[in-house]
């Protein structure tokens, strides 16, 4: 029962988008489009599904949901395993993640990592990041774990982790960094994008699957057109956009949402000509980097992993 066959009672096409995580300010544009009726204007009825602990990639790949939120590193790995997902829009133009540590830890540049403890999610890509940035900073490493103690902190959040054992961690500034500001925890953040342009990849992105592209490009166009309007509204009206998100997700902390929205609204389009576009060199560069670090077992064709074709001009 693929959901893209369904039509609602008002003759609207029903589509699902599967988030990557809990609803947060990365997703504001979607909720705005929903709230303001942009989807309806395009003849779509959109359901936004929240996974607690699962990722959207397999489900979108398998056609269970036509759209999902993912990110470049996942799309690359997924395609390397044969999952036919394609990135169709970048939510943020730049990678807003970085290595963060409380000020008192005095971690201001990658060479300060040496001898410290990193708290991560246990994915191989993190090791590769650390290795890359250490080498960029002139620290020669054969095995990162000789230089930096790497601990998997699993489900624990950043603030808990740094209370005990952990010196620095990898965060998304738009959420955890803002929470730190709210808590008046001063952080040093080393952004990946500042260290090496190749690490300025797209995260998060909106994905669909190859079959959708083949069979129903029209729906992709309509969907992205509404989404774009949503993000553009959020860019222009961060306060109202935040309120829409808070209304949709009353469980989250309103203060955090508002402040995060203020910050992130400026990042959606950033220096790009228009919201959502992805650059070929970013995909090529980061794919090569992943291949070089043996993070993918098969080299993928970056030009097939993304497209700007369905973004409204």
């Amino acid at each position: 029962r693929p959901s893209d066959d369904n039509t609602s009672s008002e003759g609207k096409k029903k589509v699902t988008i599967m988030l990557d995580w809990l609803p947060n300010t990365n997703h504001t544009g979607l909720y705005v489009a929903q709230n303001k009726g942009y989807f309806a204007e395009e003849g779509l009825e959109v359901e936004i599904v929240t996974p607690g602990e699962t990722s959207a990639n397999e489900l979108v790949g398998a056609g269970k949901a036509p759209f999902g939120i993912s990110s470049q590193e996942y799309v690359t790995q997924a395609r390397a395993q044969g999952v036919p997902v394609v990135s169709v829009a970048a939510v943020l133009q730049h990678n807003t993640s970085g290595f963060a540590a409380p000020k008192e830890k005095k971690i201001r540049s990658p060479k300060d990592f040496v001898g410290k403890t990193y708290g991560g999610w246990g994915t191989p890509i993190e090791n590769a990041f650390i290795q890359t940035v250490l080498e960029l900073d002139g620290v020669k490493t054969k095995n990162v774990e000789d230089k930096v103690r790497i601990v998997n902190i699993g489900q624990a959040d950043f603030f808990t982790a740094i209370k005990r054992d952990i010196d620095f961690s990898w965060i998304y500034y738009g959420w955890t960094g803002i929470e730190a500001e709210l808590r008046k925890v001063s952080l040093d953040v080393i952004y990946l994008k500042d260290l090496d342009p190749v690490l300025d990849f797209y995260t998060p992105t909106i994905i669909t699957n190859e079959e959708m592209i083949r069979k129903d490009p029209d729906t992709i166009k309509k969907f992205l057109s509404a989404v774009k309007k949503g993000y553009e509204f959020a860019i222009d009206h961060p306060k109202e956009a935040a309120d829409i998100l808070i209304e949709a997700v009353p469980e989250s902390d309103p203060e955090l949402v508002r402040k995060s929205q203020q910050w992130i609204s400026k990042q959606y389009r950033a220096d790009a000509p228009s919201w959502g576009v992805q650059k070929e060199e970013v995909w090529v560069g980061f794919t090569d980097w992943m291949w070089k670090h043996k993070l993918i077992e098969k080299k993928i064709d970056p030009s097939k992993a993304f497209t700007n074709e369905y973004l409204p001009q």
Partner: protein
Amino acid sequence: MTGLQIRQWQKHLRTVGPPVSILLFLLALWEGGVRLTGVEKWLLPAPSDILRTLAADMPLVLRHTGPTLKEAALGFAAGIAAGWLLAMVMELSPWLKRALYPLLVGTQTVPIIAVAPLFILWFGYDLLPKVLIVALVTFFPVVVSTADGLRSADPDMVRLLRSMGANSWQIFRMVRFPHALPAFFSGMKIAATYSVLGAVIAEWLGANVGLGVFLVRAQHSFAADRVFVAILAITFWTWLLFFLIRLLERMAVPWKQSRDKEPSK
């Protein structure tokens, strides 16, 4: 108030007194501990904070409670039915018992979250997968306890029935079944304890409403007080279910009460 009523009240008090007083004691300890050590509220909120949040969030919590309870109840019912049926089938056919037992154990060793994509692929993200997960979590204690209970029926009573020419089904119905009731209830109590939490975890696979959603959202926005409100809600409903089953057990096994009592000195 008559003497009988007074005595009944005293009995209730004796039943409810100990857990309530221990609970209050622990809560006081917690509250005091949090206040004295000054541990941050976002890490471990005090009971008073939690209660305040609960009061404020009540409508929200209630909205999320309904779906979770529905999933838990349906899944639990399905789990008990399946557990009971499997235990029965395994008792009636030793061959099937040997064949099924390892598979049943196998069902419990698959971390659901690890096969979530498959689950959603096969069952969507509506009610069904959640009910299935709750059933999957709850049927197992019921099978194991019940199967053991059925097996341990008094062999002499079984012989009596065999001498009467009873078939396996009659022996099952008249001897093994009533004998296994207490064990069945043991299994049910264990299963009941897992049912609500099972539904919450099932919601982590993908849902827009439910205590699981409430919990994860609270957690990801660093709202520890809300996390504890969710836990409180889960605990409350689990308790209710658990004690309902204890009540049911007493009603279903009346012969056990007849002589258990010590002389009342």
